[in-house]
């Protein structure tokens, strides 16, 4: 009875109220859902993917902790027998799981997600997703020197891919949905949605398109909300307060950038050498490599347990000046060694956390050293550790924008931006100079996958109309003049196609034959006889834009932006081809397969 009364009131009320009740009814009956347009539907789907990915990543993190408690105990310094045995035994089990059941879960997961986007039409197999969850949790929980972020990224992509396939999304949507899930997975694992969005845009998708950006942002936010709802609002690290007191401090951060860049090069080269070497060993060794890696890490872990696992607690301790600079330096060196061993052995796990660990330790060591020798600088060691994380991120993962925003997001401190930019840029430049191929591109090439190098793409110079235009040799016909006058001009000209300047800065194009076919009329202007307007281009527009507009015209006029009536030159298809040929670059997206 009550609901009837409510409905009566609603329907008999004002138009606004009627509209409200109508919307509510539609929501409740699901008809609102059915009236969504495709773009809106995709955004709703992104939120759902983000939520599910968030849930799975929460379970992933719980699983890693549970495995650690089970295998290594609950103390910060595990008992010696456990440290010695657990990683090795877990490595053996991981090798069997990877070798027999989940062969595609090796490595970090970033390249696999890129592969899904560029090669497999968004397909990430369900067994890969499950396998990554299980083997990742086992590897990281047992102390292998790897992180959970990249696996979470791949698991998120896998979930998105599965949902996309179940809903039978179009090929185009299915291809885009994997990065949406990847952003969700990374955001939940790292508790940093901005970093996740930037990383996926910078390293996986490689371009800012409005179609995908909204979906990526929504999925990252929804997964972070889910993760925080379950695991709390606490940040990943307890970051010390920091303010740039003296611009001279930037020199210290530049020094950190130099050291961080050098360490990045060493780390990438170590993996670049060790990984193919291990792969060249007899196939049966694939089953023992993770175990041997675990054994070696266990041996190191007896004295330095900090290097085992993701190492977030140690990063936190480094930021709070818990270690002396000597220990910090040793830990940074050992982490490079252990992560290289773990990763090259094919153990599933990520490079994010180890990168941050190495950066924090190295930064802390530099901070400690500088405090010893230059006490007047008075920069807290924690600030160095924090900036060191971004430095190594820029140097190893070569995602410069992400590295800067990651530190801002993690620290919540805007005043740290200058030191971060200085240190990251120095490290990035050093890394690029001495290690030309970024780590993810290097790994994909070692795996025989020719994924597009997003760093190389970013650096491809965009050719513009001004790079290709040529002067117009013929006389421009005046649209206000008569046909007779135009025919006079054409008679003495060599070309077969002519530009006609119309009033208002518009242009028309006309062929010699069309002009000759027109019936002469002394009273009408040439412009009024023509209905073939031609698009004009500006010198700063890209050649890609020019190609879109040229279509059936032999050439297009290039005009001044401030004065569309002023002809600067013309551009033809041949001009564009010549410009690309002269520049010696391929057009983005048109890479040729390796010969």
């Amino acid at each position: 009875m009550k609901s009837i009364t409510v409905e009566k009131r609603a329907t008999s009320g004002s138009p606004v109220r009627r509209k409200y009740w109508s919307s509510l009814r539609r929501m409740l009956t699901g008809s609102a859902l059915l009236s969504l347009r495709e773009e809106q539907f995709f955004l709703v789907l992104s939120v759902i993917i983000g939520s599910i990915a968030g849930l799975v990543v929460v379970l992933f993190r719980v699983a890693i902790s549970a495995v650690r408690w089970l295998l290594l105990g609950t103390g910060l310094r595990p008992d010696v027998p456990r440290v010695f045995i657990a990683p090795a035994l877990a490595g053996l089990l991981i090798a069997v799981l990877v070798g027999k059941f989940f062969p595609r879960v090796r490595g970090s997961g970033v390249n696999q997600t890129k592969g899904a986007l560029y090669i497999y039409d968004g397909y990430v197999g369900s067994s890969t997703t499950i396998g990554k969850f299980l083997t990742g949790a086992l590897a990281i929980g047992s102390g292998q020197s790897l992180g959970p972020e990249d696996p979470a990224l791949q698991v998120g992509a896998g979930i998105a891919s599965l949902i996309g396939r179940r809903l039978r999304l179009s090929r185009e949507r299915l291809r885009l949905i994997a990065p949406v899930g990847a952003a969700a997975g990374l955001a939940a694992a790292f508790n940093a949605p901005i970093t996740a969005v930037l990383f996926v845009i910078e390293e996986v998708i490689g371009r800012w398109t409005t179609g995908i950006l909204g979906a990526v942002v929504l999925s990252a936010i929804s997964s972070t909300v889910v993760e925080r709802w379950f695991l709390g609002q606490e940040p990943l690290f307890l970051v010390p307060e920091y303010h740039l007191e003296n611009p001279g401090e930037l020199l210290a951060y530049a020094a950190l950038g130099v050291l961080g860049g050098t360490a990045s090069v060493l780390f990438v080269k170590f993996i670049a050498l060790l990984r193919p070497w291990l792969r060249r060993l007899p196939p049966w060794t694939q089953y023992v490599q993770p175990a041997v890696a675990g054994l070696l890490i266990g041996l190191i872990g007896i004295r330095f347990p900090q290097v085992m696992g993701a190492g977030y607690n140690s990063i936190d301790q480094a930021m709070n000046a818990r270690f002396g600079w000597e220990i910090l330096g040793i830990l940074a060196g050992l982490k490079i060694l252990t992560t290289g061993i773990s990763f090259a052995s094919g153990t599933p796990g990520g490079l994010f956390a180890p990168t941050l660990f190495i950066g924090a330790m190295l930064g802390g060591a530099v901070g400690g050293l500088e405090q010893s020798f230059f006490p007047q600088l008075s920069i807290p060691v924690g600030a160095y550790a924090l900036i060191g994380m971004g430095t190594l991120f820029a140097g190893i993962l070569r995602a410069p924008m992400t590295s800067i925003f990651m530190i801002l997001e993690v620290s919540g401190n805007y005043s740290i931006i200058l030191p971060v930019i200085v240190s990251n840029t120095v490290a990035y430049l050093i890394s690029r100079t001495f290690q030309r191929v970024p780590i993810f591109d290097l790994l994909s090439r070692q795996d025989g996958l020719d994924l597009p190098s997003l760093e190389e793409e970013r650096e491809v110079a965009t050719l513009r109309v001004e790079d290709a235009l040529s002067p117009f040799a013929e006389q421009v016909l005046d649209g206000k003049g008569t046909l007779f006058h135009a025919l006079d001009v054409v008679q003495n000209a060599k070309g077969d196609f002519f530009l006609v300047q119309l009033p208002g800065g518009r242009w028309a194009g006309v062929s010699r034959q069309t002009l000759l076919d027109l019936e002469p009329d002394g009273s009408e202007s040439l412009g009024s006889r023509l209905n073939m307007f031609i698009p004009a281009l500006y010198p700063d527009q890209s050649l890609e834009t020019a190609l879109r507009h040229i279509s059936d015209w032999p050439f297009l006029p290039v005009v001044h932006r401030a004065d569309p009536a002023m002809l600067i030159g013309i551009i033809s298809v041949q001009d564009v081809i010549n410009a690309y040929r002269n520049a010696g670059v391929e057009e983005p997206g048109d890479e040729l397969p390796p010969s």
Partner: protein
Amino acid sequence: MVCGEPLTPAGRCANCEAAASLRRHKLGLPVLVLIIIAGFSFTRMVVDWFNNRQDQLASDWYQRGVAALSSHRPEQAVEDFETALVYAKHDDDEYRVQLAESLLAAGRPNEARSRLLSLLEEHPTDSMVNLKLARIAASRGELQDAIRYYQAAIDGIWSPGKTPTVERLNTRFELLDVLAANHQNELAETELAALLPELPPSASAHARIGQIYLKLGDVHRALAEFQHARQLDHNFVAAYVGAGEVALQAGDYVAAKHYLTDAVRLDDEDANSRTLLNRAEQLLAADPFSPGVSAGERVRRTLAAYETAVKRLDECIRSCAKAAADSRSRTTTPEAQADADKLAQLQSWAEQLRRYATEGRLRGRDDVVENMMRFVFATEDAAAKLCGAPNGMDELLATIGHHRWGNQ
């Protein structure tokens, strides 16, 4: 031409097919929502278990840390509290304070300070954190920082388990102790002026003030406070002990013995008052100028003091000569020469007094008694400077001399 749009090669309407596909996608959404609901329920269950386990682990490791700290294993306590902090999600401030406490106990004040500073950033008005930082600063000799933190602790907020008035009073006393130890008498006077109006009418509070005056060297006000404390509570041992200490410091051994005897009577298990009483009795027994001492006894005590001082002087001369002989340097420094001259003068003085060093010759010669005791004090004073701190009878004589003649 079903929908008035172009057909696909298969003869179907392209737009209608797309619309049908989109409708099919949307029908999948409720299923996904159900999956999310089920996923939330399952994850909630798992995370609840996880959180409970973490809470349990945090509590266990915290208890281990407390046990380690109380059994004087601070390094172990540090590790235990750090582990507890890894698992602690709630109320970890207490864990962090305990960790800082352990770090301090482990002789790692820099780390303790760093931990406390990060806590202070989050809770700038937390009195306990400020108090601990003040203690670290005081131990490092950073007096200004110590004063600032003590003041912040006094003005700050105490945790619910504490009684703010009591804690504030104790913190003020602690600050006064630090000021007195650092000879900041003016600042201490200012603090005392602020404290005295708020001082509760309790014997313990007045006794504490008396102790502070004692450290500041103001024996009169110290004695007044101890006596006030005695009036407030006749059985308050600390007041008697304090008064005894004041009397000892003032050289009034009789009064000291009186107060300390009362203290021991009130609590005969108090080791401090018993020790002080013994000392007062020894000083009384050794001092030739004690009130009520007969002339004969004064002579006997003076002769005993003289013999003790001569013996100390001979030992000191021998050790100085040996040190000079052992020294590789063949050249004598001016300081060494001055020391040798001083000892030689004292030896000469002892020789001059030697002929009076019998009871018969000394009886009735108060001037010689006075001179002999001056010699005793000068010898003990010089020997303390040149040959190490005195002990036993030498120390008692030095104290008596100090009380009688000061730094003459």
